[in-house]
């Protein structure tokens, strides 16, 4: 009997009934980890010697899970998938992970990511490319690539992720699972290796909306170590999901969803958007009112630039602590600045270096107003635009990406201008700190695709509830990659 492809609730009940022990679950999860490591290269570390944990009334107790390797874990290698931290073993644990441990959750592996979360492909990890379990010639998207691959493959019911632009919600779509980042500050970022602090969110990858709620309940909470965290002790996400969506209203944006916007659209994109419109019909069937709205195309088109400017600026500053002096493999050098230069030159991948150059450039005194400050202004405009929508609607529903997972070969990070808004609109969820969830909504060419619902800050319950209702009307809840396929 296998358990790791079941829901958290089912596993919990099996544990309670004594059908299975925490030890057996861990063994199953580690065995599966090793298989998926072979196939997909999803992990930085597999914890062979992990201890089982007591089964209590907590839903997460005794159940294995994965931690993205940019979370600090005491005594366990935490690399951020970067050569600059390839030997770094922290002496403190991230608050979110500490919270899960308190509930009895058992971390069995650390998952690979695009170096420090800076990438959307899962191909820039220092341990190599993470492959999509649905089709190993394809990418998982990123940066939470390892977490997505592992959850989709049934290594465990959930793994943590982090999301600065779409790093949870895009890989979730490419891997046919659920990816959720709650409102900014609901989960403490203390111990999460920063990429861009004002955009970084902790979150979770699961195979169902309810599991996402359970895990977020376990991770969240105000933290004296993170001034941006807030008290959510009166919010119980899992208990609040009842599937009642009477009177709820969603909107989708014409400029993003209308196929006529994409004159060069390929078959995949057409099918993806057709499928999206079918999902809109499903929403209406379960009782959610959905309307098409229009947003200034020019404003929407600015999204990727705003993201690049702000995230690169913050990243170049956030990662200035990586010098090799205090932690990380120190490099030789005549003087300190030479040693620092050698360490950073050797340790960072070219992609990150490019982003540091952009970040430094936009913050330079002579450029700052034109780039950095303007990006902040447009960020505000976009957030205001979304907040305006939230006055009428409970959320915005949009397709994730331009279709299913892309090929590893022949794909590069260069954006197609025509479809860039479709690829990048999830970043607006980070600009505003909005709760945002991706769920699988079908297949295009035999590969999973996803749909996203984003709501207003602190309205997490509403967002989860609508996602749950929609999920329940489709057949993709709890889906796992069939092993013959991966």
């Amino acid at each position: 009997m296998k358990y790791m492809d079941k829901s958290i609730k089912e596993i919990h009940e099996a544990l309670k009934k004594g059908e299975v022990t925490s030890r057996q679950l861990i063994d199953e999860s580690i065995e599966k980890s090793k298989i998926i490591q072979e196939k997909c290269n999803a992990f930085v570390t597999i914890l062979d010697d992990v201890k089982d944990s007591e089964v209590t009334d907590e839903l997460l107790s005794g159940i294995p899970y994965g931690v993205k390797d940019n979370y600090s874990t005491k005594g366990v290698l935490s690399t951020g998938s970067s050569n600059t931290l390839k030997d770094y073993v922290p002496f403190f644990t991230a608050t979110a992970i500490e919270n899960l441990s308190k509930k009895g959750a058992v971390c069995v592996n650390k998952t690979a990511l695009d170096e420090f979360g800076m990438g959307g492909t899962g191909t820039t990890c220092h341990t190599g490319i993470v492959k999509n379990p649905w089709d190993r010639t394809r990418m998982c998207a990123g940066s939470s690539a390892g977490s997505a691959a592992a959850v989709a493959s049934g290594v465990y019911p959930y793994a943590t992720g982090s999301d600065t632009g779409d790093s949870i919600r895009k890989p979730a779509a490419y891997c046919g699972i659920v990816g959720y980042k709650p409102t900014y500050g609901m989960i403490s970022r203390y111990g999460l290796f920063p990429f861009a602090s004002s955009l970084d969110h902790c979150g979770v990858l699961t195979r169902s909306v309810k599991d996402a709620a359970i895990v977020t309940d376990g991770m969240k909470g105000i933290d004296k170590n993170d001034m941006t965290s807030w008290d959510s002790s009166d919010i119980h996400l899992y208990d609040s999901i009842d599937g009642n969506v009477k009177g709820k209203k969603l909107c989708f944006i014409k400029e993003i969803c209308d196929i006529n916007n994409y004159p060069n659209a390929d078959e995949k994109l057409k099918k993806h958007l057709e499928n999206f419109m079918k999902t809109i019909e499903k929403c209406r069937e379960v009782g959610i009112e959905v309307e098409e709205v229009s947003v200034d195309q020019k404003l929407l088109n600015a999204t990727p630039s705003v993201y690049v400017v702000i995230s690169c600026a913050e990243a170049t500053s956030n990662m200035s602590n990586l010098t090799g002096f205090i932690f990380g493999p120190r490099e030789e050098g005549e003087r300190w600045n030479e040693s620092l230069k050698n360490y950073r030159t050797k340790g960072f991948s070219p992609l990150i270096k490019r982003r540091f150059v952009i970040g430094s450039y936009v913050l330079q005194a002579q450029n700052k107003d034109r780039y950095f400050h303007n990006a902040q202004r447009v960020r505000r405009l976009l957030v205001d635009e979304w907040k305006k929508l939230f006055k009428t609607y409970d959320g915005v529903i949009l397709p994730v990406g331009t279709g299913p997972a892309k090929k590893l070969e022949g794909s590069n990070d260069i954006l197609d201008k025509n479809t860039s808004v479709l690829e990048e609109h999830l970043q607006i969820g980070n600009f505003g700190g909005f709760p945002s969830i991706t769920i699988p909504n079908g297949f295009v060419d035999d590969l999973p695709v996803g749909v996203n619902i984003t709501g207003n800050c602190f309205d997490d319950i509403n967002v989860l509830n609508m996602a749950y209702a929609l999920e329940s009307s489709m057949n993709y809840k709890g889906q796992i990659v069939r092993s013959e396929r991966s």
Partner: protein
Amino acid sequence: MKYRTMIGLEMHCEISETKTKVFSSAKNDFSEYPNTSVRPLDMAFPGTLPTVNKQAVRMALMMSIVLGCKQPKYLYFERKNYYYPDLPKGFQITQETKPAPIGSYGVFEYECNGKKSVRINNIHLEEDAASSDHYPSGSRINYNRAGVPLIELVTEPDFRSADEAVAFLENIRSIYQYLGISEADSKKGQVRCDVNVSLMDASLDENDPKNWGTKVEMKNVNSFGAVREAINYEIERQTELLNSNKKDEIEQETRRWDEESRTTIRMRSKVDAIDYKYFVEPNIPKFKIPNSWIDEIKNSIPRLPSERKEDYINNYGITDYDATIIVKDKRVSDFYEECIKLKANPKKASNWITTNLLGNINKLDLEFDDITLTPSMLKELIDLVEKKEISSNQAKEVFTDILTSGKTPREVVKEKGMKQMSDEVEIIRIANEVLDENPEAIEKYKKGRTNIVDFLTGQIMKKTKGTANPKVARTAMAKEIEKR
């Protein structure tokens, strides 16, 4: 040509009186064993986040109020990005002028041969870097200092001489002490200054920036003595260049004061100035400073030196000179006020403090904290003299003893057998003894040398080993010699 000197100051003062550092929960005490007052943030371990120390903000706001600055509605912090081994995060969390720092645009009055005023450009709260020691074999970094709260105060170039600049710094230092913000001890490296100096044609209008000379900045001048020297050196250097028509050689540059050669040395030109790429610290949400908090802080500002000084002059009859000396150091002023509370004679207490206490501290090279003398001991000593139990000469001897011995005046008096002899009958007896031994003195007296009485009184003092009350002795001698 005559020149007008324009001097501006940046004064950094560590806050020493908070329990913890400004953004981490490590102890604010870098005198501890190296690298023990350290939390993960202070060494910038990945994933650590800053949390603002409210106590430090409160102290900085108090200083902002005292300097007559405007406080911002919202509190923001910014990142100043640069690489250096003593800065583990690769940026310093500080404040710039936009958004507004903890205080902007104040005017402050200080004393330097009368009242002077200086415009404060801004005052802001930031964190200190780690301290490093350099050895031939390498350098050692002590992260105890990393994250210690620091207040930086920036003035407009309103000082016209080194004297004015130093007087201002001394005023500010004592305010930091009076407010309980910092020991402000430059020996402990708590106070560090950057000084900028420029010279302009004295006949031109100083309000027109076109007439200003080229500004030269000197970094890390770490004692007030050095500030004075550095300013005077730079005035001389620039005057010489101007007088020999080498105006072009005064460059907008950063120099450093070199303690050894006692000169300023060029560090870098303004052209090579570092771009610190400031931006608002995203991990610290903007914080609204409620008016009620500002009011509460205003109401809790303790009496400052200028107020105390006025009080001493007007209510205790102390001279301006003495009052100035007493208020210069808060600990001395507190000592004095404690004496008054104990109902010691205010003038006598002031005399003891300004001459004997501070005199001895200087002479014996003591720290104020080394002395064991307490206000109540000083009061006891003053009373012993007033009740004529000991002479004032004896009192000075007792004072020297009790300064650091931990003994009380009475204990010393007893130990040394130092009771003053005020017994008139006994003194008259001794006076006659002296007269009997000095018949030639009586002759001289009779011939009109009345001042011989002083010599004879001295003989009484000698016979009594100084214990006779001098006044009683002199009266007795004057009376007895008349009888002869």
